[in-house]
């Protein structure tokens, strides 16, 4: 079970959080104009990488804020947590 550093509250036990899948999936600016395929991509398709993964978490039993987590799915190490709207870290930042 992880220890997750909430960007607002600090390190807390995983039981206080929940995960909401892949991060940095932007909602299309104008959905009416995107093709069925593009809309389907946004709705249904997610990456499942072996290695670095970016995902969204909420601190449910805490500040209730959403934030992003950069995690290595092989070692389960959380490399970084950062606020919504912050620049997505590059692998070189690690």
């Amino acid at each position, binding site marked *: *079970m992880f220890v997750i550093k909430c960007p607002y509250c600090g390190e807390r*036990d995983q039981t206080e959080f929940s995960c909401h899948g892949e991060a940095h999936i932007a909602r299309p600016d104008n959905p009416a104009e995107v093709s069925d395929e593009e809309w389907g991509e946004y709705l249904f398709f997610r990456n499942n990488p072996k290695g670095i993964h970016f995902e969204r978490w909420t601190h449910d039993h805490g500040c209730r804020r959403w934030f992003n987590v950069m995690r290595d799915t092989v070692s389960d190490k959380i490399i970084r947590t950062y606020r919504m709207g912050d620049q997505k870290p590059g692998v070189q930042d690690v």
Partner: protein
Amino acid sequence: MSNQNRTIFGGRIDRGQVINFVFNGKNYKGFHGDTLASALLANDVHLVGRSFKYHRARGILTAGSEEPNAIVQLGLGARTEPNMRATEIELYEGLEAASQNCWPSVNYDVGSLNNILSSIFPAGFYYKTFKWPPSLWLFYEHFIRKAAGLGYSPTAKNPDRYEQKFYYCDLTIVGGGISGLLSALAAGRSGCSVLLIDENPELGGYLLDYNFSINEKDGLKWIKNIVDELYSMDNVRILKRTTAMGYYDYNYLTALEKVTNHCDQLSKTTPRERYWRVRSKKIVLAQGAFERPLVFADNDRPGIMMASAGKKYLSRYGVLPGKSVVLFTNNDHAYQTAFEFNDKGAKISVIDTRENIDIRIQNKCEVLGIKLYSSFSIISTKGNKKVNQIEIQKVDRKQNELSGECITLDVDCILMSGGWNPAVQLFSQSRGKLKYDKVLNTFVPDKLIQDQIIIGCNNGCFDLSKNLNHSYQEGLNAAKDLNYEVADNINWKGEEEISFTESSVEPYMLGKKKVTKGSKHFIDFQNDVTAADIFLAQREGYISVEHTKRYTTTGMGTDQGKTSNVNALALMSHIHEKPVDEIGHTTFRPPFSPQTFGAIAGRSVDHLFDPERRTSIHKWHEENNAVFEDVGQWKRPYYFPKKNENIHDAVKRECLAVRNSLGMLDASTLGKIDLRGPDTAKFLNMIYTNAWSKLEIGSCRYGLMCNEHGMIFDDGVTTRLGDDHYHMTTTTGGAARVMSWLEEFLQTEWLDMEVFCTSVTEQWTVLSISGPNSRKFLQELTDIDLSKENFPFMKFREGKVCGIDSRVFRISFTGELSFEVNVPSRYGRFVWEQFMHHGKKYNITPYGTETMHVLRAEKGFIIVGQDTDGSVTPMDMNMDWIVSKKKQDFLGKRSFTRSDTLRSDRKKFVGLLVNDKKTVLPEGSHIVEKALKQPPMKMLGHVTSSYYSPILGHPIALAMIKNGMNLLGEKVEIPLMNGKVIEATISDTVFYDKEGNKNNE
């Protein structure tokens, strides 16, 4: 005669404190400090149980948590616990225990017939035999479960209390042997916060039973000094009788502390067990090692035990388990046991599988008069309920065979030692990698994954001095890593009589003959897995270690193969003529030892298991005979039966009261969210399918929420209270989900929108009054002008109700003239009672959720989650009217034009009227075009809601039917579970007051 096997003096028991206990109905005496196992041995009780499959007589094999055989049913009644290891149970006054898996008694067990018939019960017997026909499995299972199995669970409610403790520290040390103690000492002296966990009642580990010295001081005195120093440190916490059970990611460790299990009086204030959830910066594993059994013919008889266990019974408990003893070994270390037994008056001979034995040991044996059979092996044992004779034969190394004359020896105890296996269970759980050590013939830790340290025998090192220095040094290193000022290093020198390292362990394997006919070479004692079973599994193709494990059940007992796994792997390696590395090993999983559900549950039982939510009027409902229904965590009144009324009578009365005069519903459980901020209207436009920009202050509007797939996921009425201030209501069950949904988009998608959401569900008590008399009634209690002109439908007003500042919404879920009165929760019951009092002249009738459901169904109002199931769009529900065509975008909009949502044959929401005018269709019933004798039939859809309508005098139903809107007036059939077929006609969804005049009166 009792305690006949007790030595005259010696041991760490308190001979002044006699303890009475009962085993299999007989009274015995032991001493304070005994375990059940040591006390039984002292009383010459060797037969303690019957084995799992063959019901063979079994005794005590070990003296610790690895015990596979001596597992007993402990305690009586509600406190009884199955499969408890006699080797771990501390004796207390009045203890009662019994053998398991035997009938009528452990001495005369009918099930032991299985042993005679064993040739027809090989590995995989059940899989092969009871496979056909499938329908008979339930019949077989009943008997199989009865025949095989261990103890039984209590049937009464657990009377004890269990606690959970969350704990954070720098360093957790698992194992209180000398390695663990020294690491704790080094880290403790350096100022780290240390948690030291040990499963035994006494710290010191296995060296408590052996002769050794440290820095030329007596070992036992030295241990005592260290333990005293540790107890004196405020930064060190010591947990005895505590087993580390699971080692998870991020150094998360769970441990079970047996707090009062060993006490005869259970305290009211102290829990029976405490479950520790420990998070530490570093974990030190110092769990030591388990001695490995030898595999030989009939190696499971009572009287056969591990050499180290024999040593422990003798040194720690003053119990001599036999008078005429053989030691069967493949290493030097076990000779210490032989010398000790000899010293305490037992007649002992040694059978060593090795050819070359250390000359010093040979000399000592000669001096002591111990007969040494070098390069010999036991080929058979005899004795039904206790071993009484063995045969031995010379090992012919060249032929890899046994040869020569068989020698018969009379014995009453066999001590065996096949070397030592580090207890790598927790290390392996922590994802640490193991490697096979060819010298030790076992798996030892290789690669560490987490921030952890592994020391001592646990690390595969059996050199005392090395372990002392390494352990202390690692304690200092940990402190240094954690930025503590490190204490001085110390040079340690330990001396043991004979250490395991000096001995060359020789792997002993069965000869080519493999197995002697008519005997069993046990690998896994608890699950009755023999060498022959492992051979069979390989022959039948279960070659992978995981397959062999499951096919033979090796290592799958409550002991999880602590004594058996390595031998099984070694045998597989022998059969396949491959190194053990290539065979691999199975995965170790938590828990390390069996643990109680009580401890895992802790206080989260009974009413704390799933908390109940109650409205401020709940007590009144209880006092007035309400029957409750669970809605999410809420308790809601289902209906309010009067004397002799059943649910149908009560609901009928309640429905008619609302339709004819006045009813009142506690609607407090509806989700309520307060929305504020300049962008709220813009936000609502995105969240709901309809338009919100033009909603005036003081007006209410119904809205549907869809997810991005275009599927309905909640609904409710939202009211504009002020310029930038809205009050949203949601379904009872969806409140938390909607709140999260709003937050998700505000926090992740539209970060620039200024909207603040606050849950106010529990702040407001909602009294929904409904019926033709509701205006007349409420006007008498409020200063708000309720007239039709000044307070029209879908409007909101603030004012006093019964003198309380209230919010009143004119909205209706029944189709009748209705007002939803919101009062601060602390006045909820007061206002409710005022209403009940003043409403008497209108026959005010409290009603529950069932009546609410009937009334709304009569009007065709949907319930999200009942009529919808997450796969329907607003259009499927014929609610096109609520989907804005003008709005550019809102959540779900784009999905309405996906090919799937545009399909013309989608199920549509329709009404259903049974032709017999009396059958209330079961909800969920399937609707077919024409019912046939058996499937397949052409399916049209299913019933979502179904009730008897008191005001109409006949049943009504709502349904989802393919292309339903084009089938109005068509006949369909509904086959019921009882074989009957009901005919029904498809209708529209509004059954009562189709014009919708009633709520506008």
